[in-house]
């Protein structure tokens, strides 16, 4: 079932990408100065379909199936590629949002959890939390990945099955939205660069040129970033809530430290160390 869902996810993102590309190509071949842009585009699509259908009829019946399979494979493969390259483009933004919206507000109960598992995570967590925005986006991306992976694996180890299903669903939706955002980003880059550098725009009015090379790409950029950011925030809001409730259920001692109010982070960490030492002594005796 999950394999089918993934296949559908790649097909949706790949399909949107190719739709964007066809729209872009249509936009670039419509003659400048055309009064009704929408009707010209539809007429052009109609002509292409007629030519395509005529070519298929001439070539024989077997070719249709081969072309259909090849098209499906191409769409699937595009979706896969988009899914693979999208982290490269959105990682730094996500790293910053993860720190600002997830780690910093929940520091009071995350600190003792990280200290409990200091052998693996404490150094990365500390470096990542103390970094400024530039370091966070450029330098500490590995630390971000490490902290994120740790929290996810903690949840996957301790949380119950029904909760995990909600998380995996959210993760899947977030990944799909990121791939969709990526396809919009590619379209924006192609639109602005092709019209600015490759295409001869002598016959376009400055208004059309401005809208095509600056207005629409910026709009696409804003939409793609906001889609990705909102889905990422929703996902981590759920993970934060689930991690907290899982800690409450499985390791309530960790939360004792976070309930001591009016103390600095250093004091909280020292208290957590003391509690941990006491627990170890008890276990030894």
């Amino acid at each position, binding site marked *: 079932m999950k394999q089918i869902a993934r296949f559908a996810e790649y097909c949706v993102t790949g399909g949107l990408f190719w739709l964007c590309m066809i729209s872009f190509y249509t936009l670039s071949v419509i003659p400048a100065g055309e009064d009704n842009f929408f009707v010209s585009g539809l007429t052009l699509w109609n002509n292409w379909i007629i030519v395509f259908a005529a070519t298929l009829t001439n070539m024989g019946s077997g070719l249709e199936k081969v072309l259909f399979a090849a098209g499906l494979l191409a769409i699937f493969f595009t979706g896969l590629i988009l899914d693979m390259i999208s982290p490269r483009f959105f*990682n730094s933004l996500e790293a910053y949002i993860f720190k600002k919206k997830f780690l910093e507000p929940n520091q009071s109960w995350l600190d003792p959890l990280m200290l409990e598992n200091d052998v693996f995570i404490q150094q990365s967590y500390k470096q990542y939390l103390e970094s400024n925005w530039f370091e966070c986006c*450029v330098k500490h991306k590995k630390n971000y990945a490490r902290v994120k992976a740790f929290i996810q694996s903690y949840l996957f180890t301790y949380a119950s099955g029904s909760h995990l299903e909600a998380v995996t669903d959210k993760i899947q939706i977030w990944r799909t939205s990121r791939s969709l955002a990526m396809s919009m980003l590619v379209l924006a880059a192609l639109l602005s*660069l*092709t019209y600015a550098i490759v295409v001869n725009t002598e016959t376009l009015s400055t*208004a059309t040129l401005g809208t095509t*090379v600056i207005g629409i790409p910026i709009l696409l950029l804003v939409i793609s970033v906001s889609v990705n950011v909102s889905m990422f925030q929703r996902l981590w809001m759920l993970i934060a809530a689930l991690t907290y409730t899982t800690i409450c259920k499985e390791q309530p001692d960790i939360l004792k430290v976070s309930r001591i109010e009016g103390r600095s982070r250093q004091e909280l960490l020292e208290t957590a160390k003391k509690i941990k030492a006491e627990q170890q002594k008890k276990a030894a005796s």
Partner: protein
Amino acid sequence: MKRKFMAILLCCFLALQITPIYADNHGNNGAAEETNNQNRRNWLTAGGGCVGGAILGSFLPIIGNAIGCVAGGVAGYFVPNLMTGDNDPGQPAGAALLQKTNA
């Protein structure tokens, strides 16, 4: 977050609405007007190159954005002028791309 997003989206829509104000003045074909128009075009293509370069530069955050923006802007400003001599100015937009694709 939502307010900020709405504000940015509104600005983009307004920018799209404002652009026709700067449309070409076809009624006056004086030399000064033509030069002005050409300058405006150069800056627009430079802006487009800048936006596209910055988007592609996201591959390497911040530094890549800056480099992409500058490189795209410079290319957008100078390349169309170099190409103008090669192409027939009367041909439709996209025809150059079509020719390149077919070749």
